[in-house]
Each structure stands twice: as C-alpha cells, then as structure tokens.
C-alpha cells in the first residue's frame, strides 16, 4: 500500500511543513498542527480499516484515553512531559489490549458495533468520573510546559512526534506483519491454513491502531490545553472514519490526505456559513460516488494518465 510515489509526496509535505512556521501566519501554523494530529489519528485507524479490513466505529475512545491520561498525568499528578506522554500512550495500549480482546472475536458489523459500544462506555466514564476527567465541563487547563506554550515550538514538536509515528506505521505496514493484515482482510480462512493465528494478529493490529490513536490524543490535549467528553463520542469516531474513506483507505497516505482535506473544508466553509456541515456532506457524497478509492485514488489516476505510468500501486 506504500510505493515510491507516496514516499515522495510525504517527503515534499514534510519539507513544506518544516518551513511553514518560518513563513506562515500563526493561524496557518495552528491549522497545520491540527491537521498533523488528525492525520496521525486517521492513519492509525487505517491499520484496522484499510489493512486488516475491520471497520472500527469506536476509534475515538483511544484518542480520548490518550488525551485524558496525558492531561491527568501532566496536570493533576505533575509528572514531567515526556513521562506523562509515554505513560498515557502505554495506558492507551493497555486499554486497547483489553477492549480489543473482546472485539476481535467478532467480525464485520458485529465487530463494528462492539467497538462502538466500548467507545460509548469510555465516553460515559469521561462524562461521569468528575474527580479525574472534570466531567461535563471537561479537563480544563492542561499544564503545558513553558517551552511548548507558544504555537511555533508546539508545531515543531507535533511535527516531530507525528513524523516519527508515521514512519513507524509505514514500516509496520510494509513489513510481513502488514502483509499478513492484508491477507486476513482478503480471506481469514486462507490466512489460517497458512499458519496465521488470525485472532492474535487481529488483536495486534487493534493494539497498534489504538496506541497510535493514543499518541494523537496526547498531542490533542497539549494543543487544546484541555480534554472534553465529546472527544470520545461516537460522532468523533465517525469523523475519523470519514477522513479515512475520503482520502482512500487502500493507500498508506490516503487517510492523512483525507484528514487534511476534511479539516480544511470544515474551516474554510465554516467561515462563510454556520451550516457548513451541509456543504461538507454534499462534497463527501460527490467524492465517494465519483472516487470510491478516495482523493488518493483520484490523484493517482490523474497522474497516471498524464505520465502514462504502469499500474504499480495497491
């Protein structure tokens, strides 16, 4: 699902983002920060949707767990930043192991429904466990360290964390393990008689996806300087799923493109009308009907037609 073309796109994107804070406005840098966080989040979900073929409807749960845990460790317990982030990510990994243990026993819509149920459980905990999460008011005032408290350094920090995470995800996707995930997506029975312990591999994919969503969550908590129960709500999970579908789930960079496009659409249209969701909805319908492989599929078919290249990508 990754090829040379995609790696070039990523390198160009990285170079542009690296110079952005030196030439761009504060607004554009903050927008880019948000895109990076959601890009990582959507890419993590694609390990399940695009590689493994299991549509999770509850991915926001891990985004929220990572964010709340980071906020709690950093602010309430006063742990140093790095320790708080690592602790939050480990906790998210543990949570995805426990939730995944039950979810990967099911397939297709039953899997999706169970992930949805667990995420609503996480949402309810965020809403009701006031001493830790702040309940309905949210966790307000995350103690972001001094050196990250301006938009410029925080952007570079986010860029660093997201870049490293994306490289790790790409390596996983291109490893034997990533191919085994694709084999499971194509046919579980076939994978099983070739010696693949399907349930265990599905659990591993679930934990990988949850863990990287947790990393995105810690960045969100630092970026917003707060955490709110809506982060775990089912509509947030749907939002991530839309990013994946919009960008194209059968290419590694597709979900990242989808996250960028959706965020930009929301912000741009939101400037003109409060009914922006209607317009975003219409655009989504058009994209899904006209380009079932998402934005990436569309870009790929155009560049292929122009360049006359032969088919070499997934």
């Amino acid at each position: 699902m990754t090829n040379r073309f995609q790696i070039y796109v990523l390198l160009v994107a990285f170079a542009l983002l690296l110079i952005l804070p030196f030439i761009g406005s504060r607004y554009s840098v903050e927008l880019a920060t948000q895109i990076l966080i959601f890009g990582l989040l959507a890419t993590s979900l694609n390990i399940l949707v695009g590689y493994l073929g299991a549509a999770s409807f509850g991915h926001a749960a891990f985004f929220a767990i990572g964010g709340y845990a980071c906020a709690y460790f950093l602010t309430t317990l006063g742990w140093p930043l790095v320790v708080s982030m690592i602790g939050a990510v480990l906790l998210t990994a543990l949570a995805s192991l426990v939730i995944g243990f039950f979810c990967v026993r099911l397939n297709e819509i039953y899997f999706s429904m169970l992930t949805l149920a667990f995420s609503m459980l996480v949402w309810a905990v965020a809403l009701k466990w006031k001493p830790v999460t702040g309940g309905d008011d949210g966790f307000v005032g995350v103690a972001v360290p001094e050196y990250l408290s301006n938009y410029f350094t925080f952007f570079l920090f986010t860029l660093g964390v997201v870049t490293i995470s994306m490289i790790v995800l790409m390596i996983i996707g291109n490893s034997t393990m990533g191919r085994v995930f694709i084999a499971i997506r194509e046919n579980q029975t076939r994978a099983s008689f070739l010696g693949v312990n399907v349930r265990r591999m599905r659990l591993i994919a679930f934990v990988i996806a949850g863990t990287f969503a947790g990393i995105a969550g810690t960045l969100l908590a630092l970026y917003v300087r707060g955490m709110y129960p809506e982060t775990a709500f089912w509509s947030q999970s749907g939002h991530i799923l839309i990013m994946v579908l919009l960008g194209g789930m059968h290419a590694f960079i597709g979900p990242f493109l989808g996250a960028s496009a959706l965020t930009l659409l929301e912000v741009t249209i939101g400037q003109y009308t409060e009914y922006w969701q209607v317009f975003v909805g219409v655009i989504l319908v058009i994209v899904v009907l006209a380009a079932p492989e998402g934005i990436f599929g569309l870009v790929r078919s155009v560049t292929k037609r122009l360049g006359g290249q032969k088919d070499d990508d997934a």
Partner: protein
Amino acid sequence: MDLLEVKDLHVSYGLSKILHGVSLSVKPGELISLVGRNGVGKSTTMRGIMGLTAPKSGSILWKGQEIRGRKPHVNAKDGIGFVPEDRRIFSGLSVAENLDVAKLPASEGQQLWDEDRVFSFFPDLKQFKDRKGGLLSGGQQQMLTLGRTLMGNPELLLLDEPSEGLAPLIVADIAEKIRELKAAGFSIILAEQNLDFVLSLSDRCYVLEKGAVVYSGTAQELRDNHEVQDKYLHI
C-alpha cells in the same frame, strides 16, 4: 508407523452429513489419492484433516497424536500444508508478498523452503515476483498456491484438485512438479477427478462415493479394475 491415520471420520455441514466414516492412512513419503466424482467428499476430507471443517466424530492421528479439533493454524505450523482448490491466492498482494505471509519455520531435519528455493522450483514465478497475484494466469496461480504452502515447510501436502480448470500442457507441468515433490520426500494426499493424472502419480488410491471409501488399492490395481472405474469414476 503411519504419518497420518484417519479413522472413521464423520463430518456434517449443518444438518447435511457429508462424510460417513472415512478412514485412510499415509506413510512417510507416500502419495495417496482420493478419487471420485464431484461432491463425494474429497475436499471435505481434506478440510476435516486441516481443521477447517470440524469433524463430528472419528479420529485423526498425526504422527501418532490425536489432532481432531485442532485449529488450522496450529496444524499448518505442525507440518500439514493445504493447497486449496481453485487457486485461492491473495489477489491484492504481489507474488513475493503472497509467499512472505505464508512463511513458517521448518521443523527439525527438513530442508528449509524460502523464497529463493520456491523461485528456483517454479522459475516461471520469479519473473512475476512483483506482479499482483490477481493478475497471474491460472497455471501461474496454481504454482503460486503450491509455492505459498511450501513456504510453510510442511511434511504432508494436501493437494485439492490441482489440475482443475487448467490446460493439458499446464496439467502436465503440475504433474511433473508433484512428482519432484514426492521424490524430495514429501508425503502427499491428492484429491482429483482426473483419473489419468491420479494413476500416473499415486502409490495408492481411495475411491470415495457418497462420503465413504468404497474401494482402496494400489494405483496398478485400480487401473486394472474396470468394474470400480465404471461404477464410481466414469461419468
């Protein structure tokens, strides 16, 4: 001792009984075949041995150990290699990736199959290394399914209708490859409808009819027994 001994195997899909007590055995290095018309239970016997379809009763002894009810991936790791009918490759993965996902360590004393060895065994596949499995021809897909199973370093190969739907020339190629595998020491169970193909390769044959073994004998005995051929095999 037999490598594999199947005793009185009963298999049902839901309410319909498919196998009514199939018994067979395979000695190390032996090639036995299951023959019979369509729907007599050849595939089901193999799926039952592999653990893909759980048998209701009976016994499957692998190297003397009961393996009935074991999961397919455990059987694969323990040296049983299944090559399904109609060439079920992973169409979205390249040839090399198809081999990669099926890689399993060999048990002791066996020569290790890796990508290089599969490519030297099937030279045709090497030039299509990076091509998506779905874009291969039928014969190439059959080679890939077989090569993929070899990557798991099995001791016993279950070959389900390897000649099905292939041109006669390709069938001859496949037969030659099976002969080479047998010479390399593999034990093989071959399920086939193509009688000439079976008789040219097998040590012993089991004739199946309505989910039960109705005849067993050496390939030579079956070749000479026109009564059995007419009754159970000719259409």
